[in-house]
């Protein structure tokens, strides 16, 4: 319980602050840097190859990305596994259109205070981290849409 409270506090500690920069290699071999998407609403989803819920969340984000990409929404999936082979296998079997990054630097999880997966953060057009969500349930997709629409309309 205490750990949960601490984690929640940590999440809110990051909200409202500039998002830490993050760069990692995508499946296609191209590097992607979060700060290069300044001016767009960026959703960064942290996932693991061992997590089935992550697959569901990535699928939900893919649906959202397809709808709102033209409005300035960018979704990036970031793997936090040490096992790159597993991560690659997972990524290749995930039918998503947005970039899935593997081999992220070791400090990524710490920088974004990721204590469980899936976890996603929303970075606004000026590069400020505005929201964070831990775990994923089916009904969360509607919450994401509502929240992202608000950010896109700002």
């Amino acid at each position, binding site marked *: 319980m205490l750990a949960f409270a601490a984690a929640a506090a940590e999440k809110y500690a990051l909200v409202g602050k500039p998002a830490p920069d993050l*760069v*990692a*290699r995508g499946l296609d*071999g*191209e*590097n*992607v*840097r979060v700060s*290069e998407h300044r001016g767009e609403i960026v959703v960064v989803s942290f996932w693991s190859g061992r997590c089935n819920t992550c697959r569901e969340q990535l699928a939900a984000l893919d649906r959202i990305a397809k709808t709102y990409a033209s409005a300035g929404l960018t979704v990036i999936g970031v793997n936090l596994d040490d096992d790159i082979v597993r991560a690659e296998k997972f990524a290749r079997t995930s039918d998503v259109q947005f970039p899935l990054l593997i081999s992220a630097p070791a400090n990524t999880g710490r920088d974004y205070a990721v204590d469980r997966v899936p976890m996603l953060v929303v970075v606004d057009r*000026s590069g400020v981290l505005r929201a964070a969500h831990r775990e994923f349930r089916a009904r969360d997709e509607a919450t994401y849409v509502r929240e992202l629409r608000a950010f896109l309309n700002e």
Partner: protein
Amino acid sequence: MPTPTKPMAVKLLVRAVAWLALAASAVPALAQDPQAAPAASAAPAADATAPPADAATPAPAGASIVGTPQGTEATSPAAEPAPGEPPADTRALDETVQDLKKDVVDLNKELFVLEEELLFPANTQVAVFVSMDIGEFFALDSLTLKIDNKEVANYLYTPREAEALLKGGVHRVYLGNLKVGEHQLVAFFEGKGPNERDYKRGANLKFEKGVGAKYLELKITDRQRKGQPEFSIKDWE
């Protein structure tokens, strides 16, 4: 030992800037209070926390605020119906706010320079830059930098960044401090070489750090005759 006091000086300056930013944001808030004029609040709203990009643009508008559409948009709804609020005051207040914002931006610039001077004084400063010429035989992906066998930088280049280098951009990949004396710099370049093959090469340089700042340039050039990229380190005297 002057070094421990330098970060303190920086902190103090940061505080000073923060106070100025706070003052800038407080003025429009005061303007709202007497007559609750919504238009007046719309003009200078919010941006005190994001000075470099946002505050820089309204500054020239503030300098010639009377004629600009931005200025009139902000003031005319409140000024023309004039339900007991003098427009001249609002304009003056607007100008003050814009001036304050400009001051914040200028201070931020000065602070940035000062911070670099304090954190990396010229007598110990070492900066390493990366440049690329033509790039027909090499697409840069990442760069690892070691000074005296210690890894000091590891940078992944996105396609956009690599393109910027090809267009003549120069990237400062490292800025740090080194003692006077002899040092060794080793750079490892990774990317795609000729025929889209994975390519990894290194370059090293022994250099003498004097009392002045030291600038080193990692150059990636094409060797047309061999059809291969060439990696070199240039010591800027």
